């Protein structure tokens, strides 16, 4: 029981990394399945289109899924069209948010492409139908060009063609490794840059992330409690035909205030919108000198997410 508890705690601590690793493993596994079960290179003029589709279409679909499951995107997007006049910096804020969101959504597609290139089936098929390969392979030997399409289906032909030059498979694997190395390097550089540009210290950033998560969890619990009480009152009144007792619930404007990440003021941004709302309600909006010290620089959760 204790061991299970420890393992669970470990998983919860590192859930982001574990989440991304699981996604990568699943992508690699499904690429392997597709490659062995579904993929059959036609070995004619359709090679290029077929291979490219198998390489790129799943990557595009995974990118779209990556956007769809990103909760933060919907948080930003909901209601933004109708609130343009209230919140002029919304567009700029959204564009700034788009970069880290795209980076997170790109994990699965890039894994697919990298594993597909390493496996070499799709890219070999596509390359054997491309005009670029034809130009490179056929410059000295004219008769072999007709057979270029058949390379993925015929192993003997492939061995014969690549005795002096690098085979199509090997080329594809080299490109795959190069892609993985460059992605890793870019990820490291961007994380360094974002941490450097952070206006918040390391420990405060860490506290920030933990606070946001806790607030979200408690919000869900409180929402459920509030919804239960309201639903009980309504259903009881419906059945008993009595008048409903007054029930305090946040108004639409108050909901909007805590949902909208509209403030782009570089001097004062709060840990999270709900904290801001509760502090402005308490202090009647007065910004005292003591309060200012409490405030931290801009777009906390964006920075936290960019730093991931």
């Amino acid at each position, binding site marked *: 029981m204790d061991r299970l508890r420890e393992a669970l705690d470990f998983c919860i601590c590192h859930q982001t990394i574990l989440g991304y690793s699981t996604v990568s493993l699943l992508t690699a596994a499904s690429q392997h399945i597709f490659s062995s079960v579904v993929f059959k290179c036609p070995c004619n003029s359709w090679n290029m289109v077929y291979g490219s589709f198998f390489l790129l279409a799943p990557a595009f679909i995974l990118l779209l899924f990556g956007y769809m499951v990103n909760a933060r995107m919907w948080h930003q997007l909901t209601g933004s069209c109708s609130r343009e006049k209230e919140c002029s910096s919304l567009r700029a804020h959204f564009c700034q948010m788009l970069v880290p969101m795209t980076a997170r959504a790109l994990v699965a597609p890039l894994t697919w492409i990298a594993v597909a290139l390493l496996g070499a089936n799709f890219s070999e098929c596509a390359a054997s139908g491309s005009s670029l390969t034809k130009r490179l392979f056929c410059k000295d030997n004219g008769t072999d060009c007709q057979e270029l399409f058949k390379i993925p289906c015929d192993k003997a032909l492939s061995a014969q063609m690549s005795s002096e030059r690098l085979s199509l498979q090997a080329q594809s694997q080299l490109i795959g490794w190069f892609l993985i190395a460059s992605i890793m390097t870019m990820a490291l550089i961007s994380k360094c840059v974002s941490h450097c540009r952070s206006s918040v210290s390391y420990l405060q950033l860490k506290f920030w992330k933990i606070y946001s998560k806790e607030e979200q969890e408690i919000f869900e619990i409180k929402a459920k409690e509030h919804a239960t009480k309201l639903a009980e009152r309504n259903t009881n009144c419906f059945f008993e035909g009595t008048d409903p007792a007054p029930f305090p619930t946040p108004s639409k404007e108050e*909901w*909007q205030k805590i949902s909208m990440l509209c403030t782009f003021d570089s001097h004062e941004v709060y840990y999270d919108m709900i904290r801001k709302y509760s502090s402005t309600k308490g202090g009647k909006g007065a910004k005292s000198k003591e309060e200012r010290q409490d405030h931290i620089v801009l777009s906390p959760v964006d920075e936290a997410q960019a730093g991931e």
Partner: protein
Amino acid sequence: MDAFQTILKFFMNRKTAIGYSFMALLTMGGERVFSLVAFRCPCSSENFRYGLVFLFSPALVLLVIGYFLNSKTWKLFTGCWVNPRKIFPRGNVCSFFYVFGQITLNALVAPVMWLSVALLNGTFYECAMSGLKNPAYLDAVCQSKSEKCFGELHKVACDKSSMPFSESEELKRTLQAQSQILGWCVIVTTALLSLLTTCCASCQSKVSHLQLMFWRVYEGTEKEQLEQIFQLYATKLSERNLKCFFENKEPEPISLPAFQAWEDASQLYSFSNSKQHYSTIHRLVEEGQKGISEERETMLDLADRREIP
């Protein structure tokens, strides 16, 4: 015990994703079973019809099942024959089409999954298109092949043609390649369209994100509460009735909602921009009967989007 609770909570939070993955696996399994067990390409002039039937009939069946399983369908249609005004209320005629459109989009998920899995497999398409007698298509497929291709393409799926093995193999591979490319196109188009419509609907939403989340929680909770209270009142009423029957006594009065109250509570809900009502029952309870029979406000918002965390 705590550990299990945490694990359970983890899975409950992702139940939409798990549900869709399960549906996808079921579709893949079903498609495999069909193509191995039931599907026998006739290899004659009937190929085209046979292949298309196998491709589209299961999709139609899944669409119908999708309509059946959606409770909104029954909420929309119950009582429509007796009182057509229910479906087309005064001042809000388009609401029926809007709701029906939402229900259809939800029901279309399974058929699209079937179509994409069937096209990625290639068997049904191969059989169907090898029986297509369109001259332009035959010219394109049999481009660099022997003359026999034009007459014997429909036998290729069963390996019964008199063409050399390499040629018939290549024709099969070409047809399968076309099918798989079409399958990927279907998946990409569907994913792109659903992302764009969700973005548009989300952008034009008059309700903020957190209030929307609360609304969803409220809807689920109200449903649970309704079932509990139905159970409670049904028990009370049946106890009273059976007791009076057996003991031959006068029944004491139990207050239940009137017929009109039930009718009003069963209407589909549209969010009002000025009031803070989260459901039809909420509005009914706070405004009373007169609020419902007045002209409805312009229907604002909100697509019943799922999957938005």
